[in-house]
């Protein structure tokens, strides 16, 4: 599955989210996913399966056809783990 993490610049917060998500995957032994950091400006039109973004970007990502997971506390690995694992399960069961 292709997962895009989003932030304004595409290499700060999004890179950090990518690293945290990969930590979670590693800890849980989840494999087969590619996590790509992306910026708000160019992510439209990209083909990904799941988008992960900070909650305060909600207004920018309204109307996204791809499923978006919003993370409130960017440093809370528990939140990241719960939300993303659930989203992956949901998408995979489709």
């Amino acid at each position, binding site marked *: 599955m292709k997962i895009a993490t989003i932030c304004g*610049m595409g290499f700060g*917060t999004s890179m950090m989210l*990518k690293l945290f998500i990969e930590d979670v995957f590693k800890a849980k032994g989840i494999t087969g996913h590619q996590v790509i950091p992306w910026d708000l400006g160019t992510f439209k039109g990209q083909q990904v399966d799941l988008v992960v973004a900070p909650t*305060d970007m909600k207004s920018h990502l309204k109307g996204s056809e791809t499923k978006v997971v919003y993370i409130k506390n960017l*440093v809370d690995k528990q939140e990241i783990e719960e939300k993303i694992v659930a989203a992956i399960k949901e998408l995979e069961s489709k």
Partner: protein
Amino acid sequence: MELFKVLLELITLPAFILGLIALVGLLIQKKSTSEVIVGTIKTILGLLIMSIGIGALINALIPIQSMFQVGIPAAGFETFVTFDEAVVGAVQSANEANIGAAIAWTMLFGYIIHLVLARVTKFKYVYLTGHMIWIHAGAFAILFQSFGLSLFWTVVLASIVDGAYMTLAPALAQPVMRKIIGNDSIAFGHGQTLLNMVGAWVGKLVGDPNDSAEDAEMPDSLNFFRDMAISISLIMVVVALIAVILAVLQIGIAGVQETISGGQNWFVFALLQALGFTAGVLVLLQGVRMLIAEIVPAFKGVADKLIPGAIPALDCPVIYPFAPNSLIIGLISGTIGQVLGMVGLALIGWPVPLPSMIAAFFASGAGAIFGNATGGRRGAWAGGFIWGFVGWFMISFAYKFQVFGDLAGMGAIDLGFTVPDAIIPGIVIWLIAKIFGV
């Protein structure tokens, strides 16, 4: 021998050194062959893409600058754009006197020194903000090379300062970070530290942390500034229109179209330059993104093994969700600070940094959050304002006195550094060098 020469030329190119760092990083992480090849090539392409963006950005900037020059009669002031990525990107791509290689090596050895320091001292922080790792390596390498040092000594000294910076700055900010986040799970890893700390100290003096800005309801309508393309476009359109109107007032429409716009309508020309500048920035950022995408995970992989349990020092937006109101206060007070700073600088005849929404949102925003942590609502206003106002004087000082050497001669035309964590140590080292007559 010929082959050897070609190889030597190749491995001294900044793009290939960075590719090499990425290659080793990917190998250490035991990535598959295809991932190693793709990652290495993308890193090299990142630097090349960056130089294309820089070219576009400077091409659009030069006419805007000449409109200001024409529009503000003699004895007026000089303007420039303050943008770290553009400075380091331009200097590294122009690669005068092989400075690009010094930057690339400093990025590697500075990080190694940082990890060693984090391992042996009590400052267990691992700096993970990719573009800031690159910018500080660039700033310190440019600084030492400007003293006329050889490649070897430039890299040695710049790496030591860079490694010390990445270890100490997060430690300095941690007491305030603890107040913002509530625990020690993350640290602050961004070049804004020193001015944010000034904001926190002033906040403590003028305000009360219990009167938090976060207790009030605030609209989030200013949130669109997070979209780089929009915020830079808006500010540059305003700047270019002011420039062209000033120029028209001095030499008339015909004069502008004859001497500056190459016959194009003055209004259309100004608009195109503004958007062309933004387009250049977006290309530049795409290059930065590709450049650091492979290197940061590699650095993190090594750090995880070497310093288990270290606190990651991360990019400034990690603190935004903890204080969204302060962020908006910072954007407003920071913009006011920038404008007043510009007026002050123009009055004393110093070079004037053009307004930056990136600095207002990211830097003054973070400054306000630091101020709010120690001084509540008043602290937030003070923190954001100080970043804009004091920051603008600091940025202008570094540009005026060429603290980092002749940046324009190194390829960064009309561009200056922004982050205090590069500029303030830069000024201190520059002053010491002056005392010793370098």
